[in-house]
């Protein structure tokens, strides 16, 4: 096993001159009403959202600057009326991954995604049962629509992963969720950590789990043969900042969707997105300069220190260790949010 580099000595990947991949948060609108929504989405569009023309111009900028992959999420991307038009503008120009609740994915839409060469669709399921999922998303019927959408995608030949944000209200269904993902024909099932962003902060007491509870649940999962279950807890706690970039629905370059309340690297309507890549803070986030790190996570991920967003949320420092790593937690109670997350509301305008 490779030894972890000394604290302060970066062995992260060398800094890229410009990003290769990007997360595109195309909208802050959604047909659902998730109790944990990181973006505090609404059904009505915010006038600050980029227009169709602005998104297309931005996509052209990405292609011109050799961005090779777009991971597109929202809100709910398919709730944006021009979304398929935007996808068409990206089609065959970069690798496309779309994250969705799949409530809008009819057989026709699935066929269209196949024709547009979407490489992968990540389907959010907030439980393995309709009552659990629908309670999380505040919408009766969403689960059945999502399952139907997932099946339509697989039938059309579009690969899918499933994603489940792990909460106190669905953790007992984790095994059932993995089995469900396998039965749907997903290539992988993922469990995601709950981030203290947006509405989730207001219901943290109700939704959050202790680190011990999370680890016990993850370690108890039996993965069907030939299937893959992935997560970002120990020993897979990666610091993805070295390769991440993200633009918010309002045109803000924010590094990563989970940094949305802490970081503002520039407005892409006013400054070239690739120029924001060299923002001093972003260079720090990509540097891997952390006070401490986990050797096992370093060995599996090739990165140092784990998630910067949760490190900053719980410690208030960019060089702090990620408390979601069982080795680096240092006694941090993940069920208690620091007060600063509430009175600094947010660090930046989202």
């Amino acid at each position: 096993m490779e030894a972890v580099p000394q604290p302060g000595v970066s062995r992260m990947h060398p800094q890229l001159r410009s990003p290769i991949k990007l997360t595109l948060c195309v909208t802050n609108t959604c047909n659902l009403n998730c109790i944990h929504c990181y973006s505090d989405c609404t059904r009505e569009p915010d006038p600050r959202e980029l227009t169709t023309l602005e998104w297309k111009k931005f996509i052209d900028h990405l292609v011109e600057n050799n961005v090779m992959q777009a991971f597109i999420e929202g809100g709910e991307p398919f709730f944006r009326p021009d979304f398929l038009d935007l996808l068409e503008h990206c089609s065959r120009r970069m690798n496309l991954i779309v994250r969705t609740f799949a409530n809008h994915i009819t057989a026709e839409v699935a066929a269209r995604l196949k024709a547009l060469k979407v490489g992968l669709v990540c389907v959010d399921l907030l439980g393995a049962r309709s009552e659990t999922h629908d309670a999380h998303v505040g919408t009766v019927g969403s689960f059945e629509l999502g399952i139907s959408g997932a099946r339509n995608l697989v039938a059309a030949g579009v690969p899918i992963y499933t994603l489940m944000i792990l909460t106190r209200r669905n953790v007992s269904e984790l095994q059932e969720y993995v089995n469900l993902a396998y039965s749907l024909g997903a290539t992988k099932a993922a469990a995601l950590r709950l981030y203290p962003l947006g509405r989730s902060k207001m219901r943290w007491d109700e939704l959050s789990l202790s680190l011990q509870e999370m680890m016990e649940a993850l370690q108890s999962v039996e993965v069907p043969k030939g299937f893959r279950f992935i997560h970002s807890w120990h020993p897979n706690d990666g610091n993805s900042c070295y390769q991440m970039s993200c633009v918010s629905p309002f045109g803000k370059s924010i590094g990563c969707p989970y940094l949305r309340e802490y970081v503002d690297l520039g407005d892409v309507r006013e400054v070239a997105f690739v120029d924001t890549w060299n923002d001093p803070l972003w260079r720090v986030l990509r540097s891997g300069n952390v006070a401490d790190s986990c050797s096992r996570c370093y060995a599996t991920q090739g990165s140092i220190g784990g998630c910067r967003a949760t490190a900053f949320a719980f410690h208030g420092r960019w060089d702090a260790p990620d408390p979601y790593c069982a080795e680096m937690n240092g006694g941090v109670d993940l069920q208690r949010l620091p007060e600063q997350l509430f009175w600094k509301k947010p660090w930046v305008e989202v």
Partner: protein
Amino acid sequence: MTFELGDRFARNPAAVVREADEWDCAVVFEPDRPSLCMLNATAWLVFELCDGRSFGAIQAEYAALFGNKISKEEAGLQAALGIQHLLAFQLIQPVGKEIGARP
């Protein structure tokens, strides 16, 4: 998978290539499959050598570039493996046979 010395290979013209020399790799997007691949230095080398050359010529050039660092046989194996993987991801395609190639 085995190849004959006269089998010729060329890069998929639809593939979009971004050199990431900062990471000693190339990132290649293939729009039809679709797929995004990161080619390490040796895979990248094989990819670049697939410019219509025959398998025999690719092997020879690959071995020459490594000099005495690896044996000719090992170079041949590595080149063949690289071509196999690149074919699987549709980053290269067969483009016929070299006329007069000796088996």
